């Protein structure tokens, strides 16, 4: 039932002792990186200044801007020779966050993935089909390594097309999938095309839904269509990727591995800790990572801690399904996109006016990004062709940057509402995105 019984069921007081020991070590090691070295000096914090878990509050938060400012090596706390792997976060800005791992880091991450999957009931007798992009994205390799560690037979199917995926499932008796929710929904149609009923004609029993926020409703739908149990999980590249927290067989919130991560939940406005069980922004500190320790990382993800003990007997607390973001990151087709990226691109295109608006729609299973762009008054010479050229130019430029083809609509100067606040340029019409 447990991958590592002792650590998974560790009593709270013992967990706290372990966390403190690991935190001390992490803070000391972090102080050898350029970024934290400078930071500690500036605020007069001593690398051995941690004597209780609460002392972490004397260290400022780390944000993704910090990671970008000291890109790419500013947070490395070991000699560069010790690094054996790098990954990108799933965003597309020029300076995509890059995370480095030592051999021990990859090993610890792999163990967390194995622990997570084992927790859902996956065993070495299972056939695991990893339908996720391999490469810079953490989801592919993260799950792959974990499943191998667990001892399952791994089919590294990657981004093969849906029919081929179904063929693999059929030929090799796949029992467990790692798949994005939109792909899972899409697959139901493909099963019909090839005249197969996934409930009867496959051995499928489990799916790990990853890389996109999805609602409880979507999960239920996927479970119904494929005749499986679908598990939600949460992770972010900055904290390795998948394997930060995962649902157990009871599917009531995701256990967050507190032996590897120190968890805080803060009010994103005041930055003060919220009372336990209150909605807030998740802040995480790595407790075992050697290559690139990160302290008090603001994930921008909103959730709530579930403090009641779980029936499964694990003592690691659970978080609820992510409720949204505290910044204006948009997650479209699994890719993180910032309005600022779009703004920067638009500013470089002659003919583009002052204002733009991003509208996100979900049609069926597809996310659509519509960008309304004001045309510059002076640019217009009365030519429809000129406008059409401008539109394709914007569309091409954005596609090259955000990897998704937006639907660009040109609008009259000063016709769009002036943006207010951080999310003023985005209208998200996708219902139940976070459930």
């Amino acid at each position: 039932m447990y991958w590592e019984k002792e650590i998974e069921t560790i009593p709270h007081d013992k967990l706290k002792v372990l966390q403190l020991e690991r935190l001390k070590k992490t803070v000391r090691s972090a102080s050898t990186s350029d970024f934290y070295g400078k930071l500690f000096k500036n605020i007069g914090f001593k690398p051995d200044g941690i004597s209780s878990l609460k002392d972490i509050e004397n260290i400022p938060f780390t944000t993704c801007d910090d990671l970008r400012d000291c890109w790419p090596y500013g947070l490395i706390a070991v000699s560069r020779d010790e690094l054996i792997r790098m990954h990108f976060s799933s965003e597309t800005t020029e300076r995509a966050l890059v995370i480095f791992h030592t051999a021990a880091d990859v090993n610890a991450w792999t163990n967390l993935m194995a622990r997570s999957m084992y927790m859902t009931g996956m065993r070495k007798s299972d056939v695991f089909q990893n339908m996720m992009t391999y490469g810079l994205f953490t989801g592919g390799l993260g799950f792959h390594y974990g499943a191998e560690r667990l001892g399952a037979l791994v089919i590294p199917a990657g981004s093969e097309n849906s029919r081929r995926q179904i063929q693999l499932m059929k030929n090799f008796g796949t029992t467990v999938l790692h798949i994005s929710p939109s792909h899972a929904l899409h697959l139901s149609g493909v099963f019909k095309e090839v005249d197969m009923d996934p409930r009867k004609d496959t051995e499928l029993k489990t799916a790990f839904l990853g890389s996109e926020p999805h609602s409880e409703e979507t999960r239920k739908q996927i479970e119904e269509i494929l005749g499986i149990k679908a598990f939600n999980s949460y992770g972010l590249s900055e904290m390795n990727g998948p394997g930060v927290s995962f649902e157990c067989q009871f599917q009531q919130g995701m256990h967050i591995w507190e032996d590897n991560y120190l968890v805080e939940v803060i009010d994103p406005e005041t930055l003060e800790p919220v009372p336990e069980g209150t909605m807030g922004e998740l802040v995480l500190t790595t407790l075992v990572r050697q290559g690139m320790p990160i302290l008090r990382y603001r994930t921008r993800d909103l959730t709530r801690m579930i403090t009641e003990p779980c029936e499964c007997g694990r003592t690691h607390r659970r978080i609820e399904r992510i409720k949204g973001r505290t910044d204006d990151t948009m997650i479209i087709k699994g890719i993180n996109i910032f309005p600022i990226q779009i703004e920067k691109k638009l500013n470089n295109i002659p003919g583009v006016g002052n204002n733009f608006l991003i509208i996100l729609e979900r049609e069926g299973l597809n996310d659509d990004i519509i960008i309304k762009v004001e045309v510059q008054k002076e640019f217009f010479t009365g030519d429809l062709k000129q406008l059409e050229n401008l539109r394709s130019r914007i569309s091409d430029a954005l596609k090259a940057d955000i990897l998704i083809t937006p639907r660009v609509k040109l609008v009259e100067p000063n016709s769009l509402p002036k943006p207010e606040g951080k999310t003023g340029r985005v209208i998200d019409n996708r219902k139940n995105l976070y459930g």
Partner: protein
Amino acid sequence: MIAYQISVFAENKPGRLAKVTAILAKAKINIRAITISTSDEFGVINLLVDDPEQGQKVLAKEGLTASLKEVLAILIEDRPGGLDKLVQLLARENVNVENAYGFVLESWKRAVFVIEVDQIQRAQEILKEDGFETLNAEELSAVEPFHYMKY
């Protein structure tokens, strides 16, 4: 002679044309001809008016994106083959027509064919050599059919 057409950039949605005509009506500007070209979500309204400069000014003042565009307004005969004679000439001379529209001045006598072309100067010379008359803005408002004349 070169004439001027007002081109207005507008989103393709109800009420945009009404806004344009309301502004021009208020400014007492007469519309001689109008065409609309659209590209699903946006379009361009092309207007031939009696006072293009003033027309452009009032539209811009009301916040519309309007610009003046050079066009050729060519006098043709309002009878079968009248337009053909002109268009055959343009084809022979390899002049590409980007946009065109026409209106009758005097039934069975005279009509005006308005064209946007890629090489406006050259097109003008070719037309002149072949005996076609092109009208400028003032002439356009002057060639009133008798019964339209302002008394």
